[in-house]
């Protein structure tokens, strides 16, 4: 009896945390989404969400989040693979993680300097004869900087999956006459798929609601649902509409988690 009591006592911080910081906010967001700007109960926000403006915004958020995830994956997978082959794995891994310790805002400001008209990149392009290009405030710079910021989060789970891969399986594939490509396609990739899914989740979901980079790096030429939420809460003070968009983001994220969710197969 005594034992059960102490165990319940240890549960208190955890339960409080979940209740206060996970469940309560979600309920509040849901609750606020049912009020219009005058504070009356209504479904107008949901009606507004299904207008071309917000649907277009949702599609564009999706598109950019998809591109960011795709490019992160394309860079991260080979990197993680090479990492597992290096001698000082942990050191290399550390070097990749270190940039993520630096504040996001600082990194974004650094890119303003790097990509600017008189920045390092354009000086280089000028020197090799291509001439100055507009890099800042384009889709390219937005996706580039986002990928740069998210890449450590993509590399880590893939690296772990690759690292845990039993090398004898690859030897077996070779012995049985599989080409390198077949080995990758039929053995390595399926066995690291869980890592890839985890990486995609960690990148895609935050990418969906990026809002600071859309202003700093994309100069508001890219508008995501995150931008709209920020504006509704801070400028318009239309908490209802902001919450409604947040509700849809939560639903989208939930769907994405379910689709990419890992079902542990019995071993």
């Amino acid at each position, binding site marked *: 009896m005594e034992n059960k009591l102490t165990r319940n006592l240890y549960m208190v911080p955890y339960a409080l945390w979940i209740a206060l910081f996970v469940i309560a906010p979600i309920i509040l967001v849901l609750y606020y989404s049912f009020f219009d700007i005058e504070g009356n109960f209504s479904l107008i926000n949901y009606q507004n969400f299904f207008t071309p403006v917000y649907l277009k915004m949702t599609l564009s958020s999706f598109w950019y989040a998809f591109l960011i995830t795709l490019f992160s994956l394309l860079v991260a997978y080979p990197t993680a693979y090479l990492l597992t082959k290096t001698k000082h794995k942990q050191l290399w891994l550390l070097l990749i993680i270190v940039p993520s310790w630096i504040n996001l805002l600082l990194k974004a400001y650094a890119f303003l300097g790097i990509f*600017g008209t008189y920045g390092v990149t354009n000086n280089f392009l000028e020197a090799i004869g291509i001439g100055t290009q507009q890099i800042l405030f384009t889709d390219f710079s937005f996706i580039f900087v986002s990928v740069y910021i998210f890449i450590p989060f993509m590399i880590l789970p893939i690296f772990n999956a690759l690292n845990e891969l039993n090398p004898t399986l690859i030897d077996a594939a070779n012995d049985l006459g599989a080409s390198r490509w077949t080995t990758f396609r039929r053995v390595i990739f399926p066995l690291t798929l869980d890592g890839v899914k985890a990486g995609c989740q960690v990148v895609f979901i935050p990418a969906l609601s990026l809002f600071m980079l859309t202003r700093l790096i994309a100069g*508001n030429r890219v508008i995501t649902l995150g931008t709209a939420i920020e504006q509704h809460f801070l400028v318009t003070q*239309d908490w209802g509409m902001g919450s409604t968009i947040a509700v849809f983001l939560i639903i989208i994220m939930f769907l994405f988690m379910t689709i990419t969710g890992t079902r542990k197969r019995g071993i």
Partner: protein
Amino acid sequence: MNKLIRVFAAVVIASLLLLFAINRLNSAVGFSSDNTLTIYNWGDYIDDDLIDRFEEETGMKVIYETFDSNEAMLTKIQQGGTTYDIAVPSEYMIAKMLEEDLLLPLDHSKLPNLKNIDERFIDLPFDPGNKFSVPYFWGTVGIVFNREMLGDMEITSWNDLWDPAFENEILLIDGAREIIGMGLNSLGYSLNDTNVDHLEKAKAKLDTLTPNIKAIVGDEIKMLIANEEAAIGLVWSGDAADMMWENENLDYVVPSEGSNLWFDNMVIPKTAKNIEGAHQFINFMLDAEVAAQNTEWVSYSTPNKEALQYMPEDMVEDERFYPSPELTEKLEVYENLGKKNLALYNDLFLQFKMHRK
């Protein structure tokens, strides 16, 4: 559970002890609400020598704190943790603070220097009769441009911005009222227009400006324009003054169609303890010579008519920051349009941002 209660009680007792200690410390060094004055102002917005002079003249101790946005200031005052005696919000924030009942009325008999303020800046719609606020500095929204980069092309009006020659050269500030306002002004409508038809037209007109717009950014605009990232920017006159200080190729113009006129104002928030001192300070800042010295230091436009005679002539005659009476006629102060209309402005602004080249 007992343990938890004990921990909780310990936290409460510790907080009370700290509170007591702070109180004792404050009174030990002579900080009490009678002879200290806590001022809450924007950063870089006062000549520090004037604070010293005020302390010398009145024997009061000034505690000076700064904020960087009206919203941040509002939040701090709502919380009420610090006893701010003076705050300096912009005019639209005054309307909001009045709605939330956060301001104390001013006693005009204690502010004889109020007569120094230019009549044009007295009794404005956001505070009829100046019952709660006194203007501190004012300014406009306009166009900053780089003479070197534009060559001999002139910009004098909003409509000049639509010139195809300025392709990809314009940076805008990220403010719904300012940008939709530019659209309204360029069509000859009022900045406070709430006619949906007019607003739609303004938005459609703004869409056609898209090829010329390089980006819509926040405070970074100061750095970007000073670094010549773009040749033209839509900014507040105060920011323009900062940029021109950084880069001497820059020039500023208040567009001929008219524009916004904004004010930062001294108020006494509900948190005030030293109300007498707050009045003394406001009256001190309204003194002609003091205002002149402060204006020279801050380099914004002063509403103090008497101060102008103590200021250098080139400063007073600079039409970029003290526009001619004809142009001033066309400047409008933002009215509080209400949440619903503000939401409409924001929706249109969002749609404008989503319009691609």
